[in-house]
């Protein structure tokens, strides 16, 4: 019953925001800011301020594109789609300018992080060593509870690729966790 009321309220807010209500849009930002920022923080690894800048950009873009949201899929997955594209654009720009070398660390083999026990203790940091696509797919499907097809839509890639990214990322994380636990047991 409460869920239905929430869905109705969300739908009303979206409709009002699409008609140009700034109040409704503000409510939508307030409701979704935490999810979008948390999602971007995971994509941006530890760069919290970059993640928040991109989240602001995401909501500005969403404001301009409100009319294009057609109710297909959840509003949050629509926002995640915008956030992911903004992140990718920013990532490519930074990579071109060589200001931030995310790729090198993102593509580092799992073995290279094995000696650092502290790092493996922290799942967030272990996740940051995955490829962007693996990290995104895992965050969307395993952490945010989205379906594979929603993730495929957000990431603009085939369903099979999303599943592969999840499987590969999960295997890498499992290996990292396995090595870490083994080392911890030996040290005890």
């Amino acid at each position, binding site marked *: 019953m409460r869920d239905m009321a929430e869905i109705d309220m969300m739908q009303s807010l979206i409709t009002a925001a699409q008609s140009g209500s700034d109040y409704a849009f503000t409510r939508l930002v307030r409701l979704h*800011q935490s999810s979008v*920022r*948390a999602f971007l923080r995971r994509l941006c690894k530890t760069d919290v301020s970059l993640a*928040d800048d991109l989240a602001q950009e995401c909501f500005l873009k969403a404001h301009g594109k409100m009319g294009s949201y057609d109710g297909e899929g959840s509003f949050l997955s629509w926002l995640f789609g915008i956030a992911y594209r903004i992140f990718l654009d920013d990532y490519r720009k930074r990579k071109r300018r060589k200001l931030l070398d995310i790729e090198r660390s993102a593509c580092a083999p799992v073995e290279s992080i094995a000696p650092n026990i502290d790092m493996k203790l922290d799942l967030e940091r272990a996740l940051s060593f995955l490829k962007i696509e693996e990290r995104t797919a895992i965050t969307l499907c395993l*952490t945010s509870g989205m379906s594979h097809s929603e993730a495929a839509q957000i990431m603009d890639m085939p369903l099979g690729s999303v599943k592969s990214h999840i499987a590969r990322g*999960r295997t890498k994380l*499992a290996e990292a*966790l*396995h090595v870490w636990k083994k080392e911890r*047991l030996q040290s005890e």
Partner: protein
Amino acid sequence: MNRESFETDLDALLSAPLEPIADNGFVAKVLARLEKKKRTRDIVLGAAFLVASVDLVVAFPVSAFMVADVLANPAVAAVALIAVLTPLVSFAIIAGD
């Protein structure tokens, strides 16, 4: 510890929801940027409107002779009216969008 328990631990860790993030002025920043964007857009549109108006004055210098000429011929009057109104209506549509 066997491999299975590692996998279970990993699943539990990965399915834990992302930590909620407090607003801490985030929404206010978004709204401020939105307001600034609107102001910039208004200024750009205003400037474009001004330029278009000046262009029209330059392109169609209104003199007593021309006014009399235009009014004497309804077809020419209609064309002049369309020429004047088209950019103005276009800007009004763009501004209202």
